[in-house]
């Protein structure tokens, strides 16, 4: 594999890109647009002021105090005040509100008799993200109001309110979210989705770049441009995909860890190396698909199936440990899952290099070396088999 061959194949590919705007767009500026929009979705970081309804059937000083406490929470705002629960449901079905707080009749009077009724929060769990933001805030507002009444009761035991606080708070349970205490969805979700989207684009562009040589019957010219070396032909061609991909990948890291200022608890170099490894894998795997099928459409289909499930199986939206065995097996054939581990370890967890060694090894051996070992001889043979070209 000579440098001259790589250079010649690269120049040939660049000339093609100059005259084919779709290929150029999908390898360069269009991913930037999609990545920017996706980041912008999560840029507010946390959901605030989500509309909720409050049904107050008690109409007592206590219930009004509770509503004032609910109105003060960050995640929600009281948008509707229907008189009954029946009147509240249409607001939920129209998605005018994400949740309904119900304060039952006699709530305060029965609480005074130590026979309290619960305050019920109905959350629309078809929009779980909204419900999970609202739930803890409303719960803590309710408990804070009820807690004051409890303290008043305990104060009768002596020591006044301070004595009551001492009794009530003797055993504290402190909940700490490590590594991302801000609970910012920008960092956690956009931080995962952006590399995932980038790997979709790189894998698609690599599939197209290799596959169209066989579709268009130009495979022999491609091989000859690299002086007959399939490795040089592949390297030269895929540099036009990998370099923009790597620039965007490092740009994502620089955006989050630099401009946005989210700290890197582990090694920035290892995280960047992980990104490089993912991009290379996203070039090697499509080479295997084209080599095995010889058809652009099938290679793109295989890449799409592998890709679009990447986020779901990575373990972000649902913990990997809780998945079924079948899901874990499928996840194990997705290169993004290993990159995701590296990113989590180096960005959030501050893990040593040894902790990421396994994921690097799998990516380099299973998703780069092995596919190329199979693909290169296959692609070389295909380049000399014109009758196999042009399959759609």
């Amino acid at each position: 594999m000579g440098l001259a061959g790589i250079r010649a194949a690269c120049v040939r590919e660049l000339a093609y890109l100059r005259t084919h705007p779709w290929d150029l767009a999908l390898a360069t500026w269009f991913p930037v647009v999609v990545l920017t929009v996706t980041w912008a979705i999560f840029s507010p970081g946390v959901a605030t002021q989500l509309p909720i309804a409050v049904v107050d059937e008690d109409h007592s000083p206590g219930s009004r105090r509770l509503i004032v406490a609910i109105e003060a929470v960050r995640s929600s705002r009281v948008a509707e005040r229907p008189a009954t629960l029946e009147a509240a449901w249409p607001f939920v079905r129209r998605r005018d509100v994400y949740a309904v707080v119900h304060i039952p009749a006699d709530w305060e009077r029965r609480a005074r008799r130590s026979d309290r009724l619960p305050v019920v929060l109905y959350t629309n769990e078809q929009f779980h993200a909204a419900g999970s933001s609202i739930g803890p805030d409303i719960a803590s507002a309710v408990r804070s109001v009820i807690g004051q009444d409890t303290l008043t009761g305990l104060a009768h035991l002596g020591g006044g309110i301070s004595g009551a606080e001492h009794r009530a708070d003797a055993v504290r349970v402190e909940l700490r979210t490590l590594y991302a205490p801000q609970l910012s969805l920008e960092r956690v979700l956009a931080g995962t989705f952006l590399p995932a989207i980038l790997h979709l684009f790189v894998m698609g562009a690599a599939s197209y770049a290799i596959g169209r040589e066989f579709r268009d019957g130009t495979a022999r010219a491609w091989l000859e441009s690299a002086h007959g070396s399939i490795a040089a032909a592949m390297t030269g061609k895929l540099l036009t995909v990998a370099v923009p991909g790597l620039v965007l990948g490092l740009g994502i890291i620089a955006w989050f860890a630099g401009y946005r200022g989210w700290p890197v608890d582990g090694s920035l170099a290892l995280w960047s190396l992980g990104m490089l490894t993912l991009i290379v894998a996203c070039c090697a795997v499509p080479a295997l698909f084209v080599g095995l099928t010889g058809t652009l459409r099938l290679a793109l289909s295989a890449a799409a199936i592998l890709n679009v499930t990447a986020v779901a199986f990575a373990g972000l939206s649902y913990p990997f440990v809780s998945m079924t065995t079948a899901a874990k097996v499928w996840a194990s054939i997705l290169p993004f899952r290993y990159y995701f581990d590296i990113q989590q370890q180096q960005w959030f967890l501050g893990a040593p290099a040894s902790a990421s060694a396994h994921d690097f090894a799998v990516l380099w051996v299973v998703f780069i070396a092995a596919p190329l070992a199979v693909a290169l001889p296959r692609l070389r043979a295909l380049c000399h088999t014109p009758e196999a070209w042009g399959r759609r």
Partner: protein
Amino acid sequence: MTFLDAFRRSVGAIVRDKGPVMPATVAVVVYCFLYPLPYLPQTVRDIPVAVADADTSALSRELARNLDATRELEVAGVTRSVEEALPLLRSGSIGGIVSIPDHFERDVRRGSPTGVTIMGDGGLVVLDGTLLSSAGQTTAATVAPLVQARLARSGLPEGTLQASDRALPEFVKQPLFNVVDGYQSYVVTASMGLIILQLLTIAIAVVVGTWCEKGEWPIAIRGRLTPAAFLGMVAAFSVFSVCGILFWSGFVFWYHDLPRAANVGGVVAFALLYAAAISGFGVALGAWMAERERALQFVAACSVPLLMFSGFAFPVESFVAPVRWISMLFPSTPGIRGFIALNQMGARLDEVLPQIVHLAVLTAIFLAAGWLLSSWRTRQGHKNLQDGGTRTAHDGAIG
């Protein structure tokens, strides 16, 4: 070319060609088993935690046992300090740490201030939220009897304590529609609209892209596409979308036991509109790209933002204004919201009126765009063939 002729030829163009028939039919079925796979257990379970037990008392061991007994948590190890457990967290072997301080049981019995610290991996939001909530409740329940005994010793009347034991909870969170609070019920139902849109857009764009490449549209005569022929093609493509939606709304939601408060009539009516929008979108995209395989590359890469635009993972009320405007350009945005309301929430059609109006406007826009681009491509293709057959370079064996 009549409406029926165009309908028949368009159906044939999908079913007789492996390129579009796979996404339009086979993938619609395959995805109903593949996509829900990670979420099958519905709720988060068996998160490995380490208990950093500096107390090693009967109470701390009871707390560790109670944590292990929950559905959500699994005690993966017990250490003497947080420092010993941290390497396990950093390597990803555990999802969190429950730290029990020295003299914990003694302080609980005496009423001296003490506390349990529960730490979760904030990089995995779902895991973190479940772990903190479950471990917090378990800890409170474990120490409750000792706290009650201390309050009794400190003079709280026994009647009050008994009343407290019998009391209803002060706060109840009741999930609506997705009553098991399940991730499969939440993610898979929302994704249906996107899955159908993506697969059918690919199928339609493959057909239209193929016709554009050849320069010959089987539904056009001498480069002229009539409105009846265009509508026949749209109707044919829409049949596949409607079948896909009904398969998911009927079989898939039943098979996976997902929430079904279905307004069946409403779903069918909305599906017809959504299918027309998909057809317009697919035809416009296919005619614009004019390349058989391009949609496979393009559509798959846009899946994440299209799903997120629906607001199911991050509420639309929190979107910044430009994102809200962009999100309104795609049929999946009102489509996903409308199908959730009709399928899972049992909404009436008048309750999804904003989604119907939004989708109707997009349908009209995409059908108009599809009509203009198709007419232009048919004329252009006919002219090219008459000028000497300048077909695109990548002609090949299709089907």
